[in-house]
């Protein structure tokens, strides 16, 4: 088949909602777009271990410590799973890590905000994982088979994390005044950055149009964000907290909540490297990676020796 025929066949399959698999022909743009998106997703899981990991040693009860350890471990597992998914497209984990460390690849900007208080652990589980799930449920229908399947699996664990985060917030809200204030403060700080996780408005989004055409992406940034805004209002009410958006109002006609505008200056500021923790996150990743080099070297040296001994025997 000629290149044109292959491309036509590819688009027919996309049209028919068939999944594209690793060995199938695909346009180079499609492959690169997927590598960008999946590796960014993997990096987000891994960098996200830092703000939450920040509280493991200080968790206020043994039960919460165990839950948090298991959660952070799950996030690392998602990272592994997604790196493997990206590897099916012909890129290695080492290349992806190199792109992360040289800031060529991005990760979710939300993790450039600090987890300052214990309530932030709850807010991250509830709002950040909550926003991620809205996006990922939609991605379960993505056109690339391995990515779609990893989303199905990851969503199950993420919704568990979201419930745990919400339960942590609920416990604080039913506790002392100080605990409730801590919960309100975390909500105030994480609500807007969580909305920003869905990306810029559709009209401003660099990769959106092509991604929608390829069915990598199934719903627009603004539609997904609206879903999240709608589902979060009753959750905030149930906690008995104040909504951080003073313009939030039910719109009967639209069947959705109207809301205030996001501070897009802040969004672009943090994305372009000026958030509170951008440098810290990447430097931490680089430092740990460098500190671990001798361990990885030892592993391959030992493997090598073992092989040689087996051959000699």
């Amino acid at each position: 088949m000629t290149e044109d025929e292959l491309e036509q066949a590819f688009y027919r399959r996309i049209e028919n909602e068939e999944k594209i698999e690793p060995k199938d022909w695909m346009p180079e743009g499609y492959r690169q777009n997927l590598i960008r998106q999946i590796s960014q997703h993997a990096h987000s899981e891994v960098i996200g271990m830092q703000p939450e990991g920040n509280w493991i040693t200080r968790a206020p009860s043994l039960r919460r410590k165990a839950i948090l350890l298991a959660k952070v471990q799950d996030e690392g597992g998602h990272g592994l799973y997604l790196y493997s998914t990206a590897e099916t497209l012909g890129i290695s984990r080492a290349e992806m890590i190199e792109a992360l460390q040289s800031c060529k690849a991005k990760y979710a900007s939300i993790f450039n905000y600090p987890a300052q208080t214990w309530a932030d652990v709850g807010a991250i589980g509830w709002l950040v994982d909550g926003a991620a799930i809205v996006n990922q449920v939609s991605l379960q229908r993505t056109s690339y088979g391995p990515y779609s399947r990893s989303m199905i699996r990851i969503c199950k664990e993420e919704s568990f994390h979201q419930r745990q985060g919400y339960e942590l917030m609920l416990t604080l809200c039913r506790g002392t005044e100080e605990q409730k204030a801590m919960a309100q403060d975390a909500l105030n700080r994480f609500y807007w950055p969580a909305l920003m996780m869905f990306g810029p408005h559709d009209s401003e989004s660099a990769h959106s149009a092509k991604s929608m055409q390829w069915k990598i992406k199934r719903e627009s940034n603004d539609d997904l964000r609206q879903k999240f805004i709608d589902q979060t209002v009753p959750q905030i009410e149930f906690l008995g907290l104040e909504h951080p958006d003073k313009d939030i109002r039910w719109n009967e006609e639209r069947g959705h909540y109207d809301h205030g505008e996001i501070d897009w200056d802040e969004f672009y500021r943090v994305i372009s490297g000026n958030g509170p923790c951008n440098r810290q996150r990447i430097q931490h990743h680089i430092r740990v990676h460098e500190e671990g080099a001798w361990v990885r070297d030892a592993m391959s040296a030992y493997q090598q020796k073992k092989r040689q001994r087996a051959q000699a025997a």
Partner: protein
Amino acid sequence: MAEQNTRQDTLEYAQRLGDDAVVLGHRLSEWCSNAPFLEEDLALANTALDFIGRARMYYGYAAELADDGRDEDDFAYLRDQRDYRNLLLHELPRGDFAFTQARQYFIDVYNQLFLEELRQSADERLAAIAAKAVKESRYHLRRSRDWMLRLGDGTEESHRRTQTAVDNLWGYTHELFELDPLEQRLVDAGVAVDVAALRDPWREQVGTLLDEATLRQPADDWAVRGGREGYHTENLGHLLTEMQALHRAYPGCSW
């Protein structure tokens, strides 16, 4: 009266074992997002989780025996270092990856032997905890043993780091095999493990592995002890300060 004394001794014993577990769990959890590669972040977090789970079981049992309204968190968060009775080996800072794995290996071999015995305890609750924990420790041992081989017999640097770790840890291993009067009473009652009897099998297993990993077994020319009497290194105070800070800052709260 004798029964009452055994109950008090058992409470103290469960608390000691809980202290060992929570302190080591803390050290292991410090590796989360600090490990040499992602798989190891997961593995160390998972091991930490096993030890935190163990601490909860031991403290939970101690709380039941105390029957004075305290729960597992009161044991973990509201005692100061002089009241902590963990063996010192557990509290040493995580060090580099070789130090963490060498300590883990020593403790895993020990735990496998220890828990196998504790399963036979006349105290059904301790026996049940041991039955669950020994399965975890067998798995931990497979991993730490593999790491000792890879690091000991890997590169020159990894060999040097691992030998240094073994040398610096060795003096803390002696107290693992020492009984104080309380534990001796519990051994006589069939409740506690006679740890003195574990010394030879531990030495044999560890010696064989060190050989295979091209590492040298250190001389027995120094020993530090005192954990079971609450006589600690300076490291434990910092560990507890960090672990207990939030819990103590808001007294009486539910989390």
